[in-house]
Structure formats: C-alpha cells, structure tokens
C-alpha cells in the first residue's frame, strides 16, 4: 500500500498515452518440450541505452513444463475508481500462469533487472478452490485479479466448463469462481470489460483435448472449436447474451473493447473461417435497444500455394490460411493490429469508424512457405503472433510462437524465439525497425509481451476521454 496512487495508473486512456514511454518489456520464455524451465525475459526498450533491444535479465522458474502463454499485472488504472476500493496498490507483480501445469507464479518486478518469485500457487490449490484448470488471461478489476481458464476439472479438463476465477489483489489468495450464471458458456479463452458500463465480454477457443496435443483437424473441419462470444453483467456475474458468429467461424479468440469507456463497441478476432480459410474480425456493439450486435468487418484472404511447400496439415487445401491469432487496439482506439500468423503478416487497420475498417499498413515477416527475413538480416521463425502496442501508439512489438504443439504442425522443423518492433507512421503505416531484433536463448520460444508501466491490452480505464 502506498500513500499516493501508482504513477502508472491513469484516469483516462488519453492520459496514459501522454505518460513517459516504456523502458523495459517483459516477455514469456517458453521451453516447448519442457526440457528447460520456462521464464520471463526482460528486454531493454530504451533506444538510448547500450543494451537496447537485448535481453538484460531473465528469471527462470523452479519447475519445468509449465507452458507459459499469457500473463498480466496485479494492478492497473482500473484501481482509480472509488468503487474498487484499492487505489493504493502498486503495479508491481506479474501474475504468470502455466497453461499446461495450472501452476501460477507471482513475480515481483520492483527492480526490473532483478525479478523475484514472490509466491507460487500450486495446481492442486487452483483445482480445489476453483474447479477450473489451465489458467490463461489475467485482468485486474473491481473485485481483484480475474483469471480466465481454458479447462474445467478432471485430468483432461473436461469435467465441467472452464471459466474465470478471482484472486485477492493483495494476498494473491484464490477466492473462487467468478460466474454465478454462465448461461450457454461452455468454452473459454479471452475476456475483457468496460468498467463504468459494467459489462464483460468473453470468448472461446476449445477444450483441452482440442489443443494440448495439437490442433485436431477433424474437430476443426466439423466446426467443433468455439465460435461464440458471451456478454456478461460484470458485477452481477451473469451471462446476459451469447452471440454465435456462425459455426464456420472457428476459434473466436482475442476480445478488444474500445479503451474509452464511453464507447460501447469492440472487436474479436476469428482464427479461420472453415468455408474459405479466411481470417476474420468481427465488430461487436450495443444497439439502441440495449442488446448486443455483431458484424464481420474485416476479412483476410488465404494465399494459394503449391502443396509441396505446405505442411501436411494444409496440403489438401493448397493454400496458406491467414490464421488471425492475435489482435490489439491502440489506446486512442484508432488502429487495430491484426497478426496473420499463417501468412506471415502484421496488418494495421484504421478503425476510427469501427464498422468500416481500412487497411493502412502491412509488414511481412516469416510465414508459411514464405519465411520473410527481418530487415536486420535475422530469421523469423513461424509468423507474427502476440502483439503489444506502446501506450503512445508509436511502437508495435510482437513475438512469433503460437502454442508449443501447434507451432510444430504449421511450421514443422522450425525453431526459435524472436521479438521485433515496428514504428507507426504519423498518418498510419507500419515499418520494421532493423536494429530491434531480439533472438531468444537456444531452446526458448517467445510469447506474450508486457510493457513496463502498462500497455494496450492491460489497463482498463474508469473515466472517458475528454
């Protein structure tokens, strides 16, 4: 507890954009075969520093096989509402779950160059207190820290639906399940919310047997992955509406609401449309009658390719699907970044009019049957995947791994972890920085990035822009 609110908490997204720029990034280090412990790498992001663009510190865990994926802060700008009652938390701890082990680490970043493990929550405790497994996305909010999970109970995580659980934001004790009435929700992936408007949106990937040992082609072709998003009354913890995009829209993953809480819209990325292999973005919004609506506003076409250049999984299709695996929205709600992990492209759309996005920038890097090199000369394994935007919207960082077993299926034989950065032009556009290329230590892949002081997929703001 502090005397003043943490200086990295901002009342509005606008104020967060004007705050000092990031000096460090924290990126997941994943050992895909579990041969080494997973960890967090600290990357120097200060261009004036001698060690700019390199890993300056790393913290490895005491266990192996956790499979780090997403992670998040213990506290963010959401603390600046009197309603939450915890204005004096520090943005200090990273909550890092293992999606294979269900173990959760709380990592102290007080000194970014000397990370320490503050607490470890063992899987048994997660299972016993929540009935869920495979913890994934972290958001800090009104009741503490919210953690989404990908699995229910039992060995293979199919005993009961997955959901969200809440942790105490000071002691990091697990409190229990979030949902009081989950309605139709039976799968889970991402979630986010609008705090003053009191709604939450959640999405669906698939159940653990559908992803842990690799993508299940039969399930995909028979449309058995998630294709719905759920709207919740956040504080009453009740599912109030489910929107089914249509069963061909397989894997509705990242939820990105507008950062300005006055707006009632957002986006959701769909990995693949099984009728034509397109990637898709849906815009969702609240209609005048108060019900939720959605519309497909972006489609990205697959690229025809000779079968001999394709991995066995895709040979029958003779095409490279875009595979929209991550999206991220800049704090001014202007640009939506869309990672096309299959094509090997990062797209930038102007979404000032959320119903009519316009493609304003594109970078090619990696990709199936293409393998575009980085302008600095380095290789880029796989394709652009987890993307994070600086608070001021001028720099876009991304890494390359999707998920251990899926990487092998779409990019057989490839290996490596890379993190890169692109500059955003004054009027849009995207250009890779040749001097920013972080090659991860041998045997490690890279996944989610968190920026010191908050980023564009962390903070929820309680006050509208003016």
């Amino acid at each position, binding site marked *: 507890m502090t005397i003043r609110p943490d*200086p990295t908490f901002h*009342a509005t997204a606008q104020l967060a954009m004007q705050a000092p720029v990031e000096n460090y990034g924290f990126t997941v280090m994943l050992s895909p075969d579990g041969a080494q412990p997973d960890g967090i790498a600290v990357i120097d992001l200060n261009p004036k520093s001698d060690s700019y663009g390199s890993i300056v510190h790393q913290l490895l865990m005491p266990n192996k096989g956790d499979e780090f994926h997403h992670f998040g802060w213990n506290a963010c700008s959401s603390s600046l509402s*009197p*309603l939450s009652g915890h*204005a004096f938390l520090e943005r200090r701890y990273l909550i890092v779950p293992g999606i294979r082990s269900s173990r959760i680490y709380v990592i102290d970043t007080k000194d970014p160059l000397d990370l320490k493990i503050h607490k470890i929550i063992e899987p048994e405790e997660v299972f016993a207190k929540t009935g869920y497994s495979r913890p994934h996305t972290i958001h800090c909010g009104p*009741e503490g820290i919210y953690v989404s999970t990908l699995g229910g109970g039992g060995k293979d995580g199919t005993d009961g639906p997955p959901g969200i659980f809440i942790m105490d934001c*000071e002691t990091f004790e697990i409190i229990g399940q979030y949902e009081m009435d989950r309605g139709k929700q039976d799968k889970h992936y991402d979630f986010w919310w609008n705090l003053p408007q009191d709604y939450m949106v959640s999405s669906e990937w698939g159940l653990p047997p559908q992803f842990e040992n690799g993508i299940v082609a039969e399930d995909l072709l028979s449309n058995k992955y998630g294709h719905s998003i759920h709207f919740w009354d956040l504080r009453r913890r009740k599912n109030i509406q489910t929107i089914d995009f249509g069963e061909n829209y397989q894997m509705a993953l990242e939820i990105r609401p507008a950062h300005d809480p006055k707006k009632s819209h957002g986006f959701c990325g769909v990995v693949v449309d099984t009728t034509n292999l397109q990637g898709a973005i849906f815009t969702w919004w609240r209609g005048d009658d108060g019900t939720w609506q959605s519309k497909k506003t972006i489609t990205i076409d697959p690229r025809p390719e000779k079968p001999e250049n394709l991995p066995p999984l895709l040979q029958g299709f003779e095409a490279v699907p875009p595979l929209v695996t991550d999206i991220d929205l800049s704090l001014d709600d202007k640009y939506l970044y869309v990672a096309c992990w299959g094509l090997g492209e990062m797209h930038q759309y102007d979404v000032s009019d959320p119903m009519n996005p316009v493609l304003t920038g594109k970078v090619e890097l990696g990709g199936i049957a293409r393998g575009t090199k980085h302008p600095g000369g380095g290789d880029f394994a796989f394709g652009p995947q987890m993307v994070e935007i600086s608070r001021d919207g001028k720099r876009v960082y991304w890494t390359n791994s999707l998920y251990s077993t899926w990487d092998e299926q779409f990019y057989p034989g490839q290996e490596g972890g890379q993190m890169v950065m692109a500059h955003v032009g004054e009027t849009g556009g995207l250009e890779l920085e040749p001097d920013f290329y972080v090659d991860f230590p041998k045997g490690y892949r890279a996944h989610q990035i968190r920026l010191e002081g908050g980023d564009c997929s962390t903070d929820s703001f309680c006050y509208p822009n*003016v």
Partner: protein
Amino acid sequence: MELDTSTMTALWGAVILSGFYHGVNPGMGWPLAVSAGLMEGRNRAMAKAIGALAVGHLLAMLAILLPFSMMTALVNWQKEIRIGAGALVIAAGIYLLINRRHPRFLSRIHPTKLVLWSFLAAMAHGAGLMLVPIYLGICGVETADGGHDAARELMGQNIASAVFVALAHTLAMTIAGGVIAMAIYFYFGLKFLSRTWFNLDVLWASSLILVGCFGIYLAFEGH
C-alpha cells in the same frame, strides 16, 4: 454558560469539519460524479451523481445517529452510554487500523447505484461512528442547558439534533466533494484526480480513535 457556548461552537465546528474531511476524500465518491458527468456528457448527470452520493451519506449518518438519539432517553444512563459509544468508536478505529482491507462487496455494486454505494461505503468505513461522540456531546450540552425536561421531550429534541447533525455534516461533505468534482470537471481535468488522492486509511482510523477518546473525556467532564 460561557464554557457551554464555546463547547457548543467547537462541537458544531467538528460536525462541519468532519463533513469537509469526508467530502474531499476521493474514496468517498466525488470522482464518480466526474465520471458520471463525462460518461453522459452532461453537467446535469454530475449534479445528479453528487446528489445521490449525498443522499447515501446522509442515510448512513442517520442510520448510526438515530439509534443513539433513542438511547439518550435513558437519562440516568447517559454517562455509561457515552463511555460505551466512545469505546465503540475507538474499537472501530483500532479495527480499521489493523485491518486495512477494503470490503470486496462494495466493488460488486453497479456503478450507477450511487445512493446504495455511498451508504454502504460510509457504513463500512465507520463514517457515521465518527460523528457519534460529537453528537452525544451536543446532546449533553443541550441537556445541561435545558435542565429537567421530561424524557419524552428530551428524546424528541435529541432526534431533532441527530437530524441536524447529519444534515450539517452531509451538506459540508457535499460542498467539499462537489467543489472538487466541479473544479476537475470544468477546469483542471482528470490528470488531477490521481494528484489529489492520498491514502488516508491510517489518518482515518486514527481520527476515529481520537474522536472516541474525546467522547469519553466529555462524558467524564459532564457535557
């Protein structure tokens, strides 16, 4: 009489001051009024939110003060009641000093239900309790002035004082919070929100202990 007048002034001063103190604390809700104004883009929405926060706070004050005003009818037990009340307020202060956690149920209230939130937030933080020793002090001075009123009359008078104390306190709180909310809304902007926010938890709990001790002192002094 000389002493009684100055004591009375001091006690009413304390009622008003504690109102300002509650009002300027962002934790008591004025940022929610700014948020309401900005969310709806109308000044009226802010005024309405300030009003809702005031009603909730007033109800919380009355919920605590009225039971005590009933008890003052037990004229023979006055001293004991006041010592007991002082001890209760001290205990609440010590509890808040040891347990710095904010109750999680408050964060489950819908952001537009500001009357309910303001009421529960004031109750949870013992905002009404802070007024009890001051209020009993005021009743004590009045009793000393009035002499030998019948119990029934005395109680009526004390209920009226409870309402006045709650009203005066809430008015002061609303003015303080309202002025800050308007200053931020119209002139300074939201970057001042985090600059005006101080962690008052320890000061708050200490104030309760101090006020409780003061109440016990007054009981022994005979006011």
